């Protein structure tokens, strides 16, 4: 089972433009999907789901969303936390207003609402770019958090100012609330992650994706070629916010269950997701997954090694964890500034010629 491209001939353009043109890649993808859908749900317990799978899947959606905006369209955004909050609060309002509607609909609608808000805050991108745009989106981050803190309507006038996910189901299976089954929440998030990834891939390999990348690489040339910068940038903001909103809705309703906006969706969250796509690889769907995995799994792995294997005190491990993750990020960015996805690409290119590289 070695990675081989030799002997594979693609005779139609359709075959050439598929997501995994190489058979080995394709089978690996099917295998991962099979394990994720048919094996993991029967093996997971609460610990695995809550500390590994849910954060990984949910952050992967957010990373895909942000990657579309930053990695594909080149519009830097620091407002991810704020847009996740929009998704969370939209989902909360929908859940409480329409208790009988399926959670699927709520989460998708939360994404749609976030897409609208994202487009609104994307308007400055038509005039400013780079760092200046980043600052404008930073304003969105602070404004949105402030809004959800200060306007009681958003948290249904609850005394604590928090929002709590009530028990809601889809097809009769509980998805939110304290009495959920581990496998149900896992499968629910998995569906959203897989579909998001497929949609993102379809968009980025087609003409919309090329419009975004053209704007990213050279906006003047893009315009001369016939790309309308207004629609290209706003569509990137809308699609990106749609995914980020979905991830925010899942983060609140399925993963945390109760949320205080400044804590859960503060500026830290924006940076976390931005780090994910920088480490994973800008402009790559795989990179979004890799980055999310890196930043979600590494702390858990360090904790397991430190506390469970080496028997060190918890607080020391917690601090070491910060130091090691921080150092690794720096090492990574120096060694491979284009992220894990680029590392993987280079490996593949080497494997193409292995073992006779000349």
């Amino acid at each position, binding site marked *: 089972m070695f990675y081989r491209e030799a002997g594979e001939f693609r005779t*139609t*353009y*359709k075959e*050439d*433009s598929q997501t995994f043109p190489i058979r080995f890649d394709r089978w690996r993808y099917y295998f991962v999907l099979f394990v994720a859908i048919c094996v993991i749900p029967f093996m997971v317990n609460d610990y695995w789901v809550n500390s590994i799978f849910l954060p990984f899947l949910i952050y992967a959606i957010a990373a895909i969303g942000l990657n579309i905006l930053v990695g594909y369209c080149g519009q830097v955004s620091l407002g991810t936390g704020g847009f996740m909050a929009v998704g969370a609060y939209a989902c909360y309002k929908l859940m409480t207003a329409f208790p009988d509607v399926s959670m699927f609909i709520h989460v998708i609608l939360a994404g749609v609402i976030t897409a609208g808000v994202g487009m609104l805050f994307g308007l400055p991108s038509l005039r400013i770019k780079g760092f200046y745009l980043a600052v404008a989106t930073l304003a969105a981050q602070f404004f949105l958090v402030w809004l959800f803190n200060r306007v009681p309507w958003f948290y249904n006038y609850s005394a604590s100012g928090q929002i709590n996910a009530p028990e809601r189901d889809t097809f009769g299976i509980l998805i939110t609330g304290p009495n959920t089954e581990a496998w149900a929440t896992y499968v629910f998030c998995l569906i959203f992650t897989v579909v998001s990834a497929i*949609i993102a891939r*379809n*968009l980025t*390999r*087609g*003409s*919309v994706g*090329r*419009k975004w*990348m*053209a704007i*990213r*690489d*050279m906006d*003047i*040339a*893009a*315009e*001369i*070629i*016939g*790309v*309308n*910068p207004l629609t290209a940038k706003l*569509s990137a903001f809308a*699609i990106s916010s749609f995914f980020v909103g979905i991830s925010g809705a899942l983060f609140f309703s399925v993963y945390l269950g109760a949320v205080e906006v400044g804590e859960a969706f503060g500026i830290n969250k924006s940076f976390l997701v931005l780090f994910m796509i920088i480490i994973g690889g800008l*402009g790559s769907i795989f990179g979004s997954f890799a980055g999310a995995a890196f930043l979600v799994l590494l702390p858990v792995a360090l904790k397991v090694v430190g506390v469970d294997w080496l028997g060190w005190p918890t607080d020391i491990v917690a601090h070491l964890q910060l130091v090691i993750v921080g150092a690794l990020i720096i090492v990574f960015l120096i060694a491979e500034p284009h992220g894990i996805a680029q590392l993987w690409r280079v490996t593949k290119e080497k494997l193409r010629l292995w073992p006779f590289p000349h």
Partner: protein
Amino acid sequence: MLDQADGYTTADGRKIGPVVMEMKNITLRFGGVEAIKDISFDIREGEIRAIIGPNGAGKSSMLNVISGFYVPQEGQVFYQGQPRPPMKPFQVARQGIARTFQNIALFEGMTVLDNVMTGRLTHMQTGLFWQSMWKGKAEEEETANREVAEKIIDFLEIQAIRKTPVARLPYGLKKRVELARALAAEPSLLLLDEPMAGMNVEEKEDMSRFILDVNDEFGTTIALIEHDMGVVMDLSDRVVVMDYGKKIGDGTPDEVRNNQDVIDAYLGVAHD
């Protein structure tokens, strides 16, 4: 012969059609600087029209006016017989005008194929929803446009590098890819801004051959800016000569070559 309304026949027997684009009394100012002063000329269907002139003569500005990047303060642009209102560059592109740049303006992060496919964007209309599904409409459109793109790739002999990221290519190939991207739009008017700048003789010969072939096979009307006088005189059917923003000559290469103003201002009397 030149003033016939329905075109003329070139020395090598090609039929040149009616006027595609007409510039009437164009004046373009940047603040106090007049980059273009009251220039009028036309471009006819199927011809290769060159704009030449010394550095700073206003050639690139002229091309930018044609491609809609600059809006002239005075004068009117007529495209296919219609006066053209001030437009955004992407609207001009949708009218069938494509261009290349003096300093290559490719999308460095994308592969050659993706770059050429971006040239097809004006022909791709599938909505976001269908694209997110991919199967069906979007895939069919992609395949149909890919076929056109591949034809251009074959034509310009860049098959071997179609999956290479543009950033890795040498200069000469980049110029060719940029031509491919412009051609992929199947433009009715192609603007080339110094297509041969910085090339060696061999690359220049290749590029000249491609330009002639494009004109010959696709019947594309071409307007180009070039400094290499030999190339210009060989390639073009008619030449506009500019100096300090003014038009000082207009006609066939032979006419221009014998125009005293042009010789004085551009070719230089003392050097010969």
